[in-house]
């Protein structure tokens, strides 16, 4: 500021000197001519002559020394402006007036543009280039710039190295094509970006434990991600992404988490044996024991099956948390899959005197599902219905096409029902109806897992319930043709084939 004031003052002083000099010339001319007895207008003309002749030179001098600093300043400003003007950095040596002052001011302008750190370079223009080059080549973090259509505009060398591609190969690619990322929860980068595009001018966010699937047998990368969003950026640099690698640390954590896998192994061995011995008893004692003992035998068998299912639930929740659960979507006949799943759980209903009544609408299209995970969903919903059936002895299962063209399956019980106050939390991990906790066992994992699996299939899970009258849980799966159609539209077959969907690609499955 001081510099600017001083410059204004110096320009004013120069102007005063020039104007005063011009006036002095006129006065001097007047004194000289006055001694001759000439008519007034001639005296005036002659007196003014030197001043008139000197005028062009004075104006030229004024322009050079008074206007030059201002010219240098606007040149500096325009040179740094983000819009291209083709203006070179101002040359300071030719300035006659306030040379040092102007040099300082220009330097300050460059400093304001965060360039001055590099003004050791001969000109400010070179400093700008140095600055950009410096960031581009030396930033040790993988760094991506996306435009408004999520196309990569810029990726630095570290980014290219990180994902094992050439930097120029990356530019112009859709970010989701280049970065096959999966997130530990539904709070994903693409869902964030979608929402900030609607409602924010600028926003930033970060994610931990993001997994990157790299092509061609490169090991998986684990990292934290930070993103910055700036709406309608004039140079099409709308979103910035920075990756902080933690592959080593996180994969060590994952090794530790496999404690769950080890525990599961230890639980499964006695389960295998129990099931084996029960079967031997059933075979050997068939027709030789009382109906009561036979009934006990069936109940024992049902309980070991339930424990096996629960162990699988634990394992699968752990896998969801580690982002390890993968789906292999294949075309299947829904009626066949559903019947097989219900057969597997029928004994558990039977020993409680519950009958499962199944209706499967004819002519359902083939569906795109991972059969094993859908088995878990059916298991969990039926288990739940059995648990909350109370005195009621019927569970209805109904499969049909819904209005949205999805294959919908509902599991209805006529038991306790669910209080409206807890409905919103029903699909949350470890959440259970507190009032029933004392009477009814369970961990609150089943519905969480079911929702995760159904959502990853591109389906939906909903619940309708009335206290005292029972609950209906419904979930949808996609007809296979529709699924492939969406995959076609996403032009992303490669990723799907490699990754089999899951949270990472959920946006490709969602409508």
């Amino acid at each position, binding site marked *: 500021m001081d510099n600017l004031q001083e410059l204004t003052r110096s320009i004013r002083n120069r102007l005063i000197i020039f104007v005063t000099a011009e006036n002095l010339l006129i006065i001097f001319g007047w004194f000289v001519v006055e001694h001759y007895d000439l008519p007034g207008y001639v005296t005036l003309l002659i007196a003014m002559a030197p001043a008139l002749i000197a005028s062009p030179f004075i104006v030229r001098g004024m322009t050079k020394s008074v206007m030059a600093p201002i010219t240098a300043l606007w040149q500096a400003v325009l040179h740094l402006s983000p819009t291209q003007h083709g203006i070179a950095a101002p040359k300071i040596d030719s300035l006659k007036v306030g040379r040092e002052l102007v040099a300082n001011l220009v330097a300050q302008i460059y400093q304001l543009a965060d360039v001055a750190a590099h003004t050791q370079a001969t000109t400010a223009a070179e400093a700008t280039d140095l600055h950009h080059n410096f960031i581009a080549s030396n930033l040790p973090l993988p760094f991506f710039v996306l435009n408004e259509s999520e196309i990569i505009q810029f990726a630095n060398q570290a980014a290219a190295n990180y994902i094992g591609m050439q930097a120029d190969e990356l530019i112009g690619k859709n970010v989701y094509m280049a970065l096959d990322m999966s997130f530990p929860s539904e709070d994903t980068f693409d869902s964030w970006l979608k929402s900030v595009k609607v409602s924010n001018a600028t926003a930033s966010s970060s994610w931990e434990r993001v997994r990157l699937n790299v092509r061609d047998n490169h090991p998986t990368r684990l990292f934290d991600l930070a993103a910055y969003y700036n709406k309608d950026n004039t140079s099409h640099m709308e979103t910035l992404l920075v990756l902080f690698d933690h592959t080593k640390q996180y994969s060590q954590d994952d090794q530790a988490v*496999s404690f769950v*896998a080890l525990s*599961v*192994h230890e639980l*499964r*061995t006695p*389960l*295998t*044996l129990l*099931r*084996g*011995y*029960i*079967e*031997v008893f059933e*075979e050997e004692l068939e027709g030789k024991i009382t109906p009561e003992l036979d009934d006990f035998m069936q109940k024992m068998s049902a309980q070991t099956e339930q424990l*096996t299912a629960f*162990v*699988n639930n634990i*394992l*699968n929740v752990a896998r969801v948390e580690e982002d*390890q*659960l*993968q789906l292999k979507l294949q075309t299947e006949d829904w009626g066949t899959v559903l019947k*097989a799943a219900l057969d597997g759980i029928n004994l558990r209903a039977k020993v409680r005197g519950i009958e499962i009544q199944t209706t499967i609408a004819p002519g359902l299209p083939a569906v795109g599902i*991972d*059969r*094993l*995970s859908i088995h*878990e969903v059916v298991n969990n919903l039926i288990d739940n219905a059995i648990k909350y059936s109370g005195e009621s002895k019927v569970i209805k299962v109904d499969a049909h096409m819904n209005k949205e063209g999805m294959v919908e399956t509902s599991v209805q019980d006529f038991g306790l029902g669910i209080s409206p106050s807890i409905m919103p939390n029903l699909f949350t991990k470890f959440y259970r109806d507190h009032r029933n906790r004392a009477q009814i066992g369970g961990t609150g994992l089943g519905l969480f897992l079911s929702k995760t699996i159904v959502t990853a299939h591109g389906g939906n899970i909903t619940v309708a319930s009335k206290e005292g009258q029972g609950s209906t849980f419904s979930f949808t799966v996609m007809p296979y043709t529709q699924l492939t159609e969406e995959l076609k539209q996403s032009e992303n077959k490669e990723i799907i084939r490699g990754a089999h969907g899951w949270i990472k690609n959920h946006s490709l499955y969602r409508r």
Partner: protein
Amino acid sequence: MQSDDTPIPETPNPAPGRKVLCIEDEHFISELYARSLTKGGYEVTVIPDGAKALIEAQTDKYDIILLDLMVPNVTGIEILRALRDTTQTPQLKAKIIITTNLDQRDDVREDIENNADAYLVKAELTPHELVNFVNTVQ
């Protein structure tokens, strides 16, 4: 997700006298499996030690190998690799069925599945169901 997805049809006439090598260190499990398989018409050899089992498997006497992944000395995965490596095992007519309760990461598991003929989770099936499954493996 566990792979009990192979349907288990009842086969009335399983090939009698087919030889099974059961590589399993949990004695109670191998005892149950041997009992059911023998009843089903199979000749069963049980070896709990990985190193010995590998040598036995390489004699190529067996039609079916039931392979647990957690066995002592040489692990199931190492056995599988050695049996699929033609420089170590030039000839192997046996079908390899992985029987495990171990949960594998999907990438590891995919690798195992690609090299084995089947992958079963022991806790998911009873001995009888195992025999029915082995009957379907030709």
